[in-house]
């Protein structure tokens, strides 16, 4: 399923005409997207407190898409001190990084992950299903660590996934093929 993400628009990127109240929006207009006018493509919008995630899909969205996007949106609504320990809000840079990785590795038949905030204002994505424990930790938007444990085969690893995500792709394949 081809997917693209249109980021929420930032104020500093607006031109003067765009800044007119009648023209303001939190997302790119349809005419500005690569998929504009392409038959079969459609936009799905997942609103959160200060914008929308906009995902362009072909055909029916996969079952994991909506719960995952709603979970990411909920993270962006956490305020300072959300965890009772004075933690900062979740930074959008972490969300963007996590979404980029997720859209690159998810398959049609991958189960929906849990999307979890960290006390550092970051994000962790995890699965505990089909005999597999798989966690992806975004320690910074660019420092990504993963852990995998297959309870059926005994295989396990912990890896830095910042530059090479082949192990993650294989782990997602195992997770997706299982029943």
């Amino acid at each position, binding site marked *: 399923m081809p997917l693209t993400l249109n980021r929420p628009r930032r104020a500093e990127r607006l031109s003067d005409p765009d800044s007119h109240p009648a023209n303001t929006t939190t997302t790119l207009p349809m005419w500005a997207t690569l998929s504009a006018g392409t038959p079969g493509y459609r936009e799905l919008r997942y609103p959160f407190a200060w914008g929308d995630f906009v995902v362009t899909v072909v055909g029916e969205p996969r079952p994991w898409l909506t719960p995952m996007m709603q979970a990411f949106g909920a993270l962006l609504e956490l305020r300072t001190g959300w*965890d*009772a320990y004075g933690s900062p809000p979740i930074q959008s840079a972490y969300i963007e990084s996590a979404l980029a990785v997720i859209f690159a590795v998810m398959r049609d038949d991958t189960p929906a992950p849990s999307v979890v*905030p*960290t*006390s550092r204002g970051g994000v*962790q994505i995890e699965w505990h*299903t*089909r005999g597999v424990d798989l966690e992806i930790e975004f320690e910074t938007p660019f420092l990504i660590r993963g852990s995998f444990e297959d309870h059926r085969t005994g295989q396990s690893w912990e890896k830095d996934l910042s530059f090479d995500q082949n192990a993650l792709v294989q782990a997602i394949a195992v997770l997706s093929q299982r029943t």
Partner: protein
Amino acid sequence: MPGPPYEDDPSIRDDAALWRIIHPNWIVRDDNERGWRISSAAFYDSKDGSPLSVLLAEIIASTGRTADDLLMRFTGRGLAAITAAAARAHRQGVARTPHPDEPAHASVFGDKTGSVRRALAQAANWVHFPK
């Protein structure tokens, strides 16, 4: 704040219960165990470098408070406990770091790799599941 160098406090016995307030977003589905688990994300050190905050259950009790009293300030949160022994078994130390408004505050210090955080999460038991 990172604070001074921390030293493991031997007056905190191995069986001492260390309470950690758990946000509902830290509770994730675990189909492998047909239930729910506490995410390892609940056991990161703070962004400012200060170590993992916990509360010494014995100090909470000695000040005449209960878990319910504690959670009144934190609606929707839960409370989980690890023992000092579980922390020490994963290369962590435990130090008393009382705050002016919380004499039971303590810190679990040490390098928290993913495997350490997962071990702490798996060692945690519920004191109070979020309502």
